[in-house]
């Protein structure tokens, strides 16, 4: 299968051995999209790396920026104090980004299994968030919005809206979208796909991953939680301001494709809860969005930092080594999709070819992130 098969979500080649209809062996072949992100970032200054992080996981670009920017801020220690408002804006954007990323993961998985309508609905709803992002950052897909020490600009006038917005579906405020999401999008997904009997036949009991296997294979994010391990870096290793926010961690029971699907769907609801809390805080607390004394040439002191955050697909982590100069000495990007693809040889054998597509859709790979 692949590297240009429409269901592989990118240029991924899956080598499979078949016994009739059954798959007996499977091995992914990656590297078609390798763009030397880590080598390039050794030749750029610290702020110049931020746009490259966008392009690793291009469906959750702001989460990648958050990971890199926070790692570099940690290297500076107390020298850079990020204002509270910038932290809240980052979390707000990150959770909206998580909703778009999960919407696409769900929509494309449904389309791989033959349901085209949910895919079109997911694009319709993603468009609304992308319009919000466009008003805030100027970009629709690759934002370059976060800065070391804050964010580039404050939220534009009138984008927050009020909690009463959303009656009108064409509302352009963030509150309008969130209310629309809670009252239309989430119940619609629940009824349209998750409760669909054909969809359940295709996903239940397929690609079962036990909790022990999930931990041993370094799974994270929805794949790990689908297997029943209640682990979320936002709760278990709190970073940014997540320890001040209220949300739950949805967990699956069986570790099959359906559970991974269901965990993503519930996570969108939790993200909307977080967004609401951020919006309430942001509406009441104006202030600066950049740290006051950020030097023009950023030269962090010598040291190393490994920063882990909960990305849309799992644990995104960044290992930055500084030698005291203006360029990072080394950047290592730990991407969840790269690690999750190792699960394919484990999950696929014993299933049919059509189930490969369900399994691949449920672990939600982005090839830009696999190959970096």
């Amino acid at each position: 299968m692949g590297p240009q098969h429409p269901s592989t979500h990118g240029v991924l080649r899956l080598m499979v051995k078949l016994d009739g209809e059954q798959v007996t062996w499977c091995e992914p072949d990656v590297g078609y999209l390798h763009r030397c992100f880590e080598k390039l970032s050794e030749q750029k200054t610290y702020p110049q790396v931020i746009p490259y992080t966008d392009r690793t996981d291009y469906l959750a670009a702001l989460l990648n920026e958050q990971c890199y920017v926070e790692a570099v801020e940690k290297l500076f220690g107390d020298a850079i104090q990020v204002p509270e408002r910038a932290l809240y804006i980052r979390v707000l954007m990150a959770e909206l980004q998580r909703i778009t990323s999960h919407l696409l993961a769900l929509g494309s998985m449904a389309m791989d299994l033959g349901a085209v309508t949910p895919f079109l609905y997911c694009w319709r709803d993603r468009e609304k968030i992308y319009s919000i992002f466009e008003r805030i950052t100027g970009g629709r897909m690759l934002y370059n919005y976060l800065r070391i020490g804050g964010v580039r600009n404050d939220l534009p006038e009138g984008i927050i809206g009020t909690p009463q917005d959303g009656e009108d579906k064409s509302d352009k405020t963030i509150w309008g979208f969130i209310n629309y999401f809670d009252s239309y999008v989430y119940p619609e997904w629940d009824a349209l796909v998750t409760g669909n009997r054909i969809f359940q036949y295709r996903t239940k009991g397929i690609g079962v991953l036990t909790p022990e296997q999930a931990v041993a294979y370094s799974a994270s994010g929805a794949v790990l939680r689908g297997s029943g391990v209640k682990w979320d870096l936002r709760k278990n290793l709190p970073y940014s301001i997540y320890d001040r926010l209220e949300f739950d961690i949805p967990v699956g029971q069986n570790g099959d494709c359906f559970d991974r699907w269901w965990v993503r769907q519930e996570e969108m609801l939790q993200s909307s809860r977080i967004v609401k809390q951020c919006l309430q805080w942001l509406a009441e607390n104006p202030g600066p969005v950049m740290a006051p004394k950020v030097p023009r040439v950023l030269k962090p002191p010598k040291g190393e930092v490994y920063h882990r955050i909960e990305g849309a697909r799992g644990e995104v982590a960044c290992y930055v080594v500084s030698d005291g100069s203006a360029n990072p000495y080394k950047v290592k990007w730990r991407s969840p999709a790269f690690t999750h693809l190792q699960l394919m040889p484990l999950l696929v054998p014993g299933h049919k070819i059509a189930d490969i597509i369900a399994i691949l859709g449920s672990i939600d790979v982005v090839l830009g992130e696999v190959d970096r």
Partner: protein
Amino acid sequence: MDFLKERFPDAQFTTHVNGDTEILVPRERYEEAVRACYDAGYKYCSVVSAIDWQDRLTLVTSLARIDPAEVGARSIHIKVDLPRTGARIWSISNLYPGANWHERETYDMYGIRFEGHPNHRRILLPDNWQGGHPLLKDFTDRRPKRPRLVRHRFAE
């Protein structure tokens, strides 16, 4: 980190700015250090990578705990200094299956060989790649230069 300090009293411990522990062990005792962490509950391998210090390579293995009840458990980074050419080290991918591809990538990018690895091939670069290991600092791309694309003159 007491279990490591007891077994490696003379090893070099450092703390990252975010609280992660880092331990530098000799090459022969790498297996012992990884097993000690595994037995202490660090059953999750975040990443295996290397740093090129120009005079030596440093292999970094980051291990973490997955315990749903625990808040704020930091990672352990086990570091081993290796020579820049012909480095060999024990593979942890039998203990941590999730490290399999990370070790392949480290081999691909830095040239460190992992003994006992089940599938020791290049991963991101082509199998027949001859140009060396790209993330080494002295790597130069020796492929022939591609011709420049001619810019079309639209305004005519």
